[in-house]
């Protein structure tokens, strides 16, 4: 089952996986909120690398722009605007915490079992296209034009909504 031959992809995957999991675990376990966000940004960058490995250059690019850039900055803004003491509060509910750990571990066990039990047989090779961005762009403006336009509306609504919510209420 684990008799993988060490290829270049495998090595790179391993490196990125270490970065991602390390970032995620640090995000969970660090004490200061800003440090958490920075470790999270590392995990996002690792994921972008993983996408490159998976022949998805455009998505990797978007991932860097939006996640590692915009969302992380947004979170840091959020932290700053909500006047943190910079420390996460001490957990006060041991039972709750334990149950959450048990739930997460059980779920992982289930997923791992499912992944192991499944047999994924690829029937054809993947063709990312000559230019991944061009291919995605063509697909987006031909087959998926309606969802694309809907998304633009969603983004506008979210944009206005965020401003309306965060705006200081008139005294």
């Amino acid at each position, binding site marked *: 089952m684990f008799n993988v031959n060490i290829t270049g992809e495998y090595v790179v995957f391993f490196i990125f996986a270490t970065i991602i999991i390390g970032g995620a675990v640090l995000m969970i376990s660090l004490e200061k909120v800003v440090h958490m966000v920075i470790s999270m940004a590392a995990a996002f960058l690792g994921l972008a690398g993983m996408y490159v490995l998976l022949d*998805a250059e455009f998505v990797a690019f978007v991932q860097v722009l939006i996640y590692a850039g915009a969302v992380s900055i947004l979170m840091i803004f959020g932290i700053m605007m909500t006047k943190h003491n910079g420390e996460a509060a001490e957990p006060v509910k041991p039972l709750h915490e334990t149950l*959450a750990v048990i739930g997460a571990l059980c779920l992982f066990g289930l997923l791992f079992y499912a992944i192991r039990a499944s047999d994924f047989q690829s029937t054809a090779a993947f063709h990312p296209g000559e230019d991944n961005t061009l291919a995605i762009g063509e697909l987006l403006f031909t087959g998926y034009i309606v969802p694309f336009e809907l998304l633009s509306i969603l983004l506008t609504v979210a944009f206005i909504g965020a401003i309306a919510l965060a705006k200081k209420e008139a005294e």
Partner: protein
Amino acid sequence: MLSSYLTLAAILFCIGLYGTLAKRNAIIVLLSLELMLNAVNLNLIAFSKYGAIPSLTGQLFSIFTITVAAAEAAIAVAILIALFRARGTVLVDAFNRMRR
């Protein structure tokens, strides 16, 4: 190779789930949510390359997901700021009442 990606995604998802359920700071909860969404994205892209029928659609879907996640993050931070003004805290266990 696919199962390695899927396992990685499962690990990420479960860490995100734990963070969402157990962390008290609302910002960290949001970050954990993003982590879970990323795990889904990783799945989508892995399937788009190694799935039964490899296709670009998986990548397209992940773009949609990222877009929605970005909108969600913006709204969530806005709500958080509004709540912080009202309650003076960002700890989620303080947000258990609809009124002050």
